[in-house]
Every structure is written in C-alpha cells, then in structure tokens.
C-alpha cells in the first residue's frame, strides 16, 4: 500500500460550486444554510467521534500518568528519568508520530490515539508529581501525629491537597488533545479534523466547512475546559472558602 491517505468515502459531502446557494457559490466564510444542511451527516458525527476520542485518550493517559507519578513520587531517583522521558515524547511533532505509527498499527483510530496518550503523559505526570510534592512537611507531620498510616495520609491528605494541580494538568491535557487530534485526520478520517482537511483539500478551500469544523473544535476545547473547571471546584470545596 503506497498511498497512506484514506479515501473520504462516506465522508463530508462537498458541494458542487455552481449548484449551491449564492453564499456557497461565492465561498463566503460562513453559510448557515450549509451548516444546517450538513450538521447531521458531517459535523455532528465528527464532533461525537472527537469527544469519544478525547475521553478515551485523557482517561487512559491519566491512568498511566498516575501510576508513573506514584513511582516517580515514591522513588525519587526515578523522577528525573521519567521526567526526561516524557519531555522527549512531548517534543516529537504529532504529524511525525502519526506517520511513523501508521506503518506499525495501520490506518486505525488507535494510530491517532497512541501519540495523543503519549502527549498527555507529559503534562499529567509533571502536574501529579508536583501536586503531591507541594504538600507542606508540617501537614504530613501532623497527619502522622494524628496516627494516620502511610496509606491514609496519601488518600486523605496528600491526594486531596494535590487535586488542584492534578486538575490543572487534566485541563491542559484535555484542551491540547482536542486541538492535536485534528491533525490525526490527515492520516485517518476521524473526528473534527476530517471536515477541516476536506475543506482545505478543495481547490479554493471550502471556507464554510473550514470555519464550522475549526470553530467546533475551539468551542469543544473551551467547553471541556469550563466543565473541568467546575469539576475541580466541586472536588475541592475547601478552596472556595478562601
């Protein structure tokens, strides 16, 4: 298989210029009629795919990062190694990683998901370790004075106090994932990147589709960020007292 691109079979319907409305024929920046007409067959499915991918990626990334962070937190000597490892991963351009993985895992959604998970590790690992470390020594001392075991100290003192830093990491990881996932559609037709690339591949760039899909990606990122901020507030009720 020499051609990496997937044919856009069943993908977005590209309007034939000349047959569409005046707005489409003039390729205006935003034609509401097109968005209305193709919401069901193009934009909504892409949006749902994008949301699914983001939830899976951030979820898996969080579990892996949390386990790594526990190791890096407990065995301090390993922390620089794990930190440097996640730093190198984060440096690799997503386009390159997607291209390399296509030859290993094929044209499947997993090919986009793996690099995205790797990217979340960088932010999440750092934030979890720093959050856990930021707990003041006096607090730990008094926890021990109160007779808490090591395990109780972790679940009842260190983890709650690290929650704001951890949630900040989750927010950054989620927003970045939503944004970077669009690039994956260059290789695999999945998510909001598909309509974006479809629009760009039109000879004149199909502006309405580009703006609608790009705008949806931005709105999704901002909405996810807002929701996670609310979640963070409800997880740390004590921080509202300040």
């Amino acid at each position: 298989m020499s051609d990496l691109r997937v044919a856009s079979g069943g993908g977005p319907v590209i309007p034939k210029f000349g047959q569409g409305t005046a707005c489409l024929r003039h390729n205006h920046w935003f034609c509401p009629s097109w968005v209305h007409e193709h919401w069901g067959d193009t934009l909504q499915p892409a949006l749902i795919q994008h949301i699914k991918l983001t939830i899976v990626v951030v979820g898996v990334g969080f579990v892996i990062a949390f386990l790594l962070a526990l190791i890096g937190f407990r065995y301090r000597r390993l922390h620089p190694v794990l930190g440097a490892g996640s730093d190198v991963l984060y440096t690799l351009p997503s386009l390159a990683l997607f291209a390399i993985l296509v030859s290993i895992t094929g044209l499947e959604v997993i090919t986009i998901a793996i690099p995205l998970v790797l990217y979340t590790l960088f932010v999440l690992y750092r934030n979890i370790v720093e959050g856990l470390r930021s707990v003041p020594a006096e607090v730990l001392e008094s926890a021990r004075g109160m007779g808490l075991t090591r395990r109780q100290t972790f679940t009842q003192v260190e983890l709650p106090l690290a929650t704001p830093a951890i949630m900040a990491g989750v927010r950054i990881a989620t927003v970045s994932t939503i944004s970077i996932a669009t690039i994956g559609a260059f290789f695999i037709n999945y998510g909001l990147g598909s309509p974006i690339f479809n629009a760009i591949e039109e000879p004149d760039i199909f502006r309405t589709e580009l703006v609608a899909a790009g705008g949806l990606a931005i709105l999704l990122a901002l909405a996810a960020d807002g929701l996670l901020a609310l979640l963070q507030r409800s997880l740390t009720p004590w921080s509202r007292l300040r």
Partner: protein
Amino acid sequence: MVTSLFINALQFIPDNISLLLQKALETAELAFTALGIAIVIALPIGLWLGHKHRGLTLALGVSSFGRALPTIALIGVFIAWLGVGFWNVTAALVVLGIPPVLTNSYAAVDGVDRDVVEAARGMGLTERQIVTGVELPLGLPLLIAGIRNAAVFVVATATIAGIAGVEHGGLGQIMANSVTYGQDGVLAAAFVVAAMALLTNFALGLAQHAASRRMAPRA
C-alpha cells in the same frame, strides 16, 4: 514487514539526502522566521506586563486560547484569506508562536523577587534599567523556556503547513505526497522532522541551562 519498512525509510535518507536537506531547510526557514517575529511581538509585551504585574488574565487567557486553537484550521483560514504563500503561512505560525513566549516572559518578570526590584529602585535605577538590568537577567531561564516551547511547537507546525499545499512547504510536502515519495519517503521525512524538533529542544535546553547557571547565586 514493519522492520523492512523502517529499514527502507532509513535507506531513503542517505539516498535522498539533498532533497531532505532542502526540504528541512525550507521548514526551518518558515519556522524560524515565524519564531523571530513572534518573539519581537510577544517579548516586549510580556516583559512590560510582567514588570507592571498587570494583565495576568490576558497572559493566561492568551496561552490557554493558543492551546485550544486547532493549528491546521488556523493555517487553512490564513490561506483561504490571504492565499497560499510563504508569508501567509508565516503569519499563521506567528499567531501560534506568540502565546508561549508571551506567557513565559510575563511569568519570568512577574516572578522576580520584589525585594530585589525594590532594592534596585532604591539604588536609583530607572524603570527601564530595572527591566533590562535586573528583571530580564533574573528571569532569563524561564524566558528561554518559553522560547524553547514556542520553537519546538512552531517547527512541528511548520511541517503541517506543508500538507496544506504551500509551495516550498518543506518536509510536510514529502509527508503529504506518498504517491511520489512512497511510504519510505513519508517515514523518512517524519524521522527528519522528529530529529529537527529534538535538536531545537536540545539546543535551547542548553541555553536555558547556561542562563540558570549564570543566574544561580554563588556560594
């Protein structure tokens, strides 16, 4: 099967070294022109806001909005608006390079010990001298960290510009054209892009390290 693919891709590099070098140079030219312009725009604003300890919301807002922007859509908008060309893509890359530089230069100056700044003011330094002579050198490691983030990001994104059909679009052009270059070529270009990003990160990491060592208090 997979290993032979990788071996072929690695063979593609020496066989087509002049093509890859030329395309890598194009990517570098796009990326570093944009990075330079982004620094010229964002650095003074970040330094000034940080010096005044003002505009935290702006600095944070710019960085989180920058993170939410889908790069490929932004490049598409610039091309649709201004047409395909070196400067149009550069403009899109500048937009993407500004947030990390702005946020970090703000944080670098904002985080300088206020007592040190007070002492400098007491010694009769002008505000300008305080920024350039005290806050800038002390905040330099963090500031270079921001430039480092921006550089790595812009190099990666400059590659994406190539797949949006820009002429002289660099390595992305090879990656977008598997019909001509084959899967070996796509993989080889991916390796070169990865190497460029790692090299950029490493070089600026050294600069950051040097800056923080120079600024560390001597025992």
